[in-house]
């Protein structure tokens, strides 16, 4: 299941970045809004179904009891995190190569939504860790890597706030996103060789079919909600960005 989800997510992101970053200036505002609304409504619907399936319908776990149910939010959050940061990375590379502001807006949207899911994943993980491991936090490779990711992309957002010139902001933050993303696997492996504790992921064969179904529904719901939020954030960023460029143009013309 993991590979299928990953494939769907990666494909969705590449399509999103290429279509929205490149073509959206040509695509009408209304078409995009309608597409976002449909995605968001579908996502919310599936979220409701998934929550029912996961919290009510799926059976209680043998050893962990009901606390395992947090995984229905925890796992999909990491899919959202991966999708968000990957979007930011791909869009940043494309910005550096093409210098089209559309990609900068996509990168900002990806980083911000990715950070949101990242923090959700960290908090749900800590809440689950306390009853299961006895501690909220350990220095396991995955926990450490995801925390470093959060700090890296929080730094990315702080940096953007300090840069006023649109061109410099887009260029400098793209580089930060690229280096930060490339660094993620290096952090993961270095900490893994340093120490390890996190349990291996369960495969669909070892968990009960109803749980798999509920988890899949939640995964799809989160991906749809991710795309909805990404689109909204992108449109907002584009609106602000165009306003900013217009202001610069007026200033130059006024001289």
């Amino acid at each position, binding site marked *: 299941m993991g590979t299928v989800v990953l494939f769907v997510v990666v494909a969705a992101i590449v399509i999103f970045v290429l279509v929205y970053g490149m073509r959206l200036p040509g695509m009408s505002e209304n078409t995009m809004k309608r597409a976002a609304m449909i995605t968001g409504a579908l996502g919310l619907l599936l979220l409701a179904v998934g929550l029912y399936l996961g919290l009510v319908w799926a059976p209680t776990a043998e050893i962990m009891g009901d606390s395992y149910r947090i995984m229905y939010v925890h796992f999909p959050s990491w899919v959202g995190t991966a999708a968000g940061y990957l979007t930011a990375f791909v869009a940043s590379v494309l910005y*550096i190569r093409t210098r089209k502001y559309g990609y900068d807006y996509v990168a900002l949207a990806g980083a911000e939504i990715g950070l949101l899911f990242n923090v959700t994943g960290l908090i749900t993980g800590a809440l689950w860790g306390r009853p299961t491991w006895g501690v909220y936090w350990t220095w396991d490779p995955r926990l450490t890597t995801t925390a470093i990711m959060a700090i890296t992309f929080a730094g990315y957002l702080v940096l953007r706030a*300090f840069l006023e010139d649109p061109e*410099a902001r887009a*260029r*400098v933050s793209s580089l930060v996103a690229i*280096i*930060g993303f*490339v*660094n993620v696997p290096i952090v993961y492996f270095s900490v893994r060789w340093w120490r390890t504790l996190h349990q291996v992921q369960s495969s669909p064969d070892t968990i009960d079919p109803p749980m798999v179904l509920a988890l899949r529904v939640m995964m799809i719901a989160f991906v749809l909600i991710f795309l909805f939020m990404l689109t909204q954030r992108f449109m907002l960023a584009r609106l602000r960005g165009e306003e900013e460029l217009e202001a610069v143009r007026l200033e130059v013309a006024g001289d």
Partner: protein
Amino acid sequence: MGDLRRAMALVRKDLLTERRSKAAFNAMAFFAAMVLFIFSFALGPDAPSMSAGPGQTLLQYLWPGLLWVAIFFTGILSLSRSFQIEIESGGLEALRLYPGDKKAVFAGKLVANMIVLGAMELILVPVSAVLYNIDLWTKLPALMGVVLLGTLGFAAVGTFYAALTSNLRARDVMLPVLLFPIIVPVVVAAVKATTLVVRGDPMGELWTWLRILGLIDIVLLTVCTLTFEFAIED
């Protein structure tokens, strides 16, 4: 060939500036001394009975980690200066106008930074060893290798981010915020290797950790070198 000469010229220029002003070096020397003293006040010079190993004080036990914390915190002072001086004197414009590959500028700045950091470490390592009573005179060659590799990774990312943040008003805040998450792998590998050097290496792990550290250096160096030309664009 021309790029190599350009890089060497930049190294000479940076070292000459530093030798005449000694600004970065003086700041680092005082800061490093303060860090070493703060550690010893915070962690105490006495031997605690439980936490450290037999016959060791907490400071001796923690020395590999403390050393690297001191190096990174101190080093950031000189890194942030390395492009600030260019901005102040308008030198960055000249660097941008240089003919040839911008990688030469990165290489020159990196080597100059490494020499300044190395000078700081040449003082910091023995002084901290003396203050905390560490016996490292027989282990000096291996330790120098570890310190060199750790400094390379730190300086590579540090030089890159110093260039990136040099235009910011809030550069003194942003440089550590951006730099420290990226050098986490360097911290892990360098501290591990230093611990193995100082405390003995019964399992023969040192060579593995040195290779890990070298690998991290190569990856970071490659990414920073390839993207540096975009970092100093205007």
